[in-house]
């Protein structure tokens, strides 16, 4: 997994609440058996005027000129500013894969759906919860200043807003540690293999049926 320490990047505002994972990456693109290549289809239905399908040459498709990520001033954005309950809906990890593949490294919103939030961390994408009125002000700051950037310092848990003020954010210590060091969860868990085996032995006595197949 890619490390995340400090990131400063162009911010793009997605002014819409309850953005669901179907909207982030529509289901026809879930048919891929890879983890990469989803970027061109991020927000496919909002981004293009036609209906997308896998394996298409996306460069030939008509773009929706009004969609925020198509505006020239947001090209190259790497921090997504979003509204409440971002990432609701299905558990598809294709959503963070698509956001990462497009170039986003962090998302700032007043709240996230649980599974999406969790999936982001597995992929080095940092979801940051910031109070709703502050997010609202940041939307204003980004709109008012072309080229506005946001800086994120994970170690110190600080977001620097376009207006220069800093906001602190909460993050679970374990997730922070993994992200800062780019650690692979599985490897870490396997260091506890003995605890897992000991647990299985205890469980097998109490609930043997759990371990049997017909």
């Amino acid at each position, binding site marked *: 997994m890619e490390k995340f320490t400090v990131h400063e990047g162009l911010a793009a505002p997605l002014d819409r609440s309850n953005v669901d994972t179907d909207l982030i990456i529509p289901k026809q693109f879930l048919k891929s058996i890879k*983890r990469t290549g989803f970027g061109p289809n991020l927000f496919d239905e909002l981004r293009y005027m036609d209906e997308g399908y896998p394996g298409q040459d996306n460069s030939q498709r008509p773009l929706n000129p009004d969609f925020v990520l198509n505006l020239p001033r947001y090209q190259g954005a790497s921090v997504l500013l979003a509204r409440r*309950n971002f990432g609701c809906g299905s*558990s598809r*990890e294709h959503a963070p894969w698509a956001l990462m593949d497009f170039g986003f490294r962090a998302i700032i919103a007043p709240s996230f759906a649980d599974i999406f939030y969790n999936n982001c961390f597995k992929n080095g994408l940092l979801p940051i919860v910031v109070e709703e009125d502050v997010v609202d002000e940041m939307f204003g700051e980004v709109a008012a200043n072309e080229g506005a950037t946001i800086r994120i310092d994970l170690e110190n848990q600080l977001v620097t807003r376009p207006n220069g003020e800093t906001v602190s954010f909460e993050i679970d210590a*374990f997730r922070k540690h993994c992200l800062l060091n780019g650690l692979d969860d599985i490897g870490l868990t*396997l260091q506890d293999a003995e*605890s897992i085996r000991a647990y299985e032995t205890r469980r097998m006595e109490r609930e043997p049926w759990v371990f049997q197949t017909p």
Partner: protein
Amino acid sequence: MAGKTLYDKLFDAHLVKQRDDGSALIYIDRQIIHEVTSPQAFEGLRLAGRQPWRINANLATIDHNVPTTPFSNASEIEDDTSRIQVQTLENNTREFGITEFGIGDPRQGIVHVMAPEQGAVVPGMTVVCGDSHTSTNGALACLAHGIGTSEVEHVLATQCLIAKKMKNMRVRVEGQLGPGVTAKDVVLHIIGVIGTAGGTGYALEFAGSAIRGLSMEGRMTICNMSIEAGARAGMVAVDDVTIDYVRGRPFAPAGAQWDQAVSYWRTLVSDEDAVFDKDILIDAADIRPQVSWGTSPEMVVPVDASLPVPSQEQDPVKRTGMERAYEYMGLEPSMKVSDIQVDRVFIGSCTNSRIEDLRAAAEVARGRRKADSVKQVLVVPGSGLVKQQAEQEGLDRVFVEAGFEWREPGCSMCLAMNPDRLLPGEHCASTSNRNFEGRQGNGGRTHLVSPAMAAAAAVAGHFVDVRELEKAE
């Protein structure tokens, strides 16, 4: 010290290790696998040279991509990418020695229908699947929730998940449900009350006399949509209904183990003095048959109501959301629900494709015919076994005589990954769980309803109050 909630008990019973940083390693008893969210997980195992930790903890089937017209071999799936996913799962399960209910196996079906049906999920288990509606299994007093693909790989490799304890919320529905009011209406009503983010960060327990009065199928419908209320997991405590449901299922314990299991399962209830972080009380008598009108499951109204007016909404974020939903749905504020015309009807999905759901739909369809204005009515059983059962009861004939199409099991038009889908602008009465934009086909407009309400809409050509229909008999 306060007592424990059902969720506390399940969590504690699976705790392998509490880490200093607040995260915990919890043991996973059962993982269900399907073709869409697993290929990258198996690939990850292969690349790292890892083997599954406990092969028999896993059970696989195909559902999202399968056509619902008869086919007998993966090579008959026309869509290249769908076929590749189905074949990839076949190859992966074979390579790693995991049991798969594949094409032609009567046990094949939607993951969340198949697993409880097989007894592959029993009370007290932790259950995961790369699919958010895994919460369905919580009806069996399990801790069951959806996970992402990285976690599918993590569970395959370690049989554990890194978890953080959720908060406890109880939703009590007390009293008697009115006639024509089903589990689907109860859960849509609950979502309408708490909102689609109301359960975020919580494990939900559904309780109260109205919930206890439901069958296992009904409880599964309710737990299924916990995720639409923002909660990863929803559950119902063990009672006689739970135990009767599990008895005799293929993977369930038998003989002396059965008694041992039952006495443990009986403890899987929240203690009297357990404290919930949030406790919500709903009067069953307030619940009427529901219809969703917008693009989020919380945008729901009773069938005899009219649609809400955005300008009356105080919250600006919600107001914008409503305006956008009206535009997408092509509907007007204040219009009556019964004035919404329906182009297609979908009866199926992990929310409502079990035998009881099909019986409820058939009850309405019996002796009636689909309206001419309705282009298609799909009835898609949740599994091969549900299909067999329905056919034994003659439900397939009832549907066919009513002009409905009787299909093969799968997810079908719930998310339109297979050829079953809406055309742009079409309105669909659907028994599924999500009404997001484009969910059932690009530009399609979904209205979430119960199976009886869906069948009634198919017959009338627009939404009707199923209670009125019953009276007309």
